[in-house]
């Protein structure tokens, strides 16, 4: 991505995310009271975050690739099942992935 495109991402993301927050403080309550909209809105973060796990952990450009990152993700999953705190999840994934990366 070009430097100007990266600035565009930063500026547009910041502007839009703030506008959404301010809009919520300014519109009448009934505007977003639609139950379908609320159901979908509650599911969107789960879908997008799940897709980001895949895109960052299992994909290189447009190919599905199983590499050292998968080992890290597996350990992260185990840590989450063991109710480990967030920093432990992230660091254990990083250490595992780095070790596997250097073994290959």
């Amino acid at each position, binding site marked *: 991505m070009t430097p100007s495109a990266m600035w565009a991402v930063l500026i547009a*993301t910041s502007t839009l*995310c703030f506008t959404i927050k*301010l*809009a919520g403080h300014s519109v009448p309550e009934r505007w977003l009271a639609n139950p379908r909209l609320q159901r979908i809105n509650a599911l969107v973060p789960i879908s997008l975050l799940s897709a980001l796990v895949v895109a960052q952990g299992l994909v290189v450009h447009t190919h599905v690739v199983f590499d050292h990152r998968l080992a890290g993700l597996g350990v992260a999953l185990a840590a989450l099942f063991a109710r480990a705190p967030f920093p432990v999840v992230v660091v254990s994934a990083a250490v595992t*992935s780095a070790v596997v990366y250097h073994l290959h």
Partner: protein
Amino acid sequence: MSKDTVRDSLSVALTVGAYGVAFGAASVAAGFSVVQTCLFSLLTFTGASQFAAVGVVASGGVAVSAIAAATMLGTRNALYAIQMAPLLRVKGLRRVAAAHLTIDESTGVALSQASRGTAAMRLGFWLTGSGVFLFWNIFTLLGALGAKALGDPASWGLDAAVPAAFLGLVWPRLENSFLRLAAASSMAFALVITPWLPAGLPIITTALVAVALGWRAR
């Protein structure tokens, strides 16, 4: 001023603020400068959206995909704002400040103080919001500088830390089997469409899974 509310707010602010390290590192690994990374946390100030924007950029997506993914993740803040506005009752500059501080944590702590009264709810919102803002930005800078010093992201496992952070963000939301099904089918959908779409686009396309599952009441 309730001591319990202050304690709740500050413990959430410090814990959540510390996640900023992961964002700072992810943003630098995606190719953003340290200054851009810090501006993200100062100006966007909603973690999941920030992670999504740099995540799409890191996966090779175009700018529009990154902006769209971040914005879609930010829409939940509007629903929080609608709940917070009648509680805070602020106008002008204070409303702008309240809007900027409207995130998962400030809303969550405010709502959790309901049994302690309106004053405690307001205190919880402002203290948690400004506390997260302070710590999130400090830790973003530390994470960015740290990642800059480390160099090759794969060599330090940073390329696995980022998806692990996303997994850690989605995990506490999976409160019942329907939501776990939603996460699993979203991952499967993203995997299946990845070879067929330009980089970055599978992420926002996966929002269709949320639309399909949320269309009808269960």
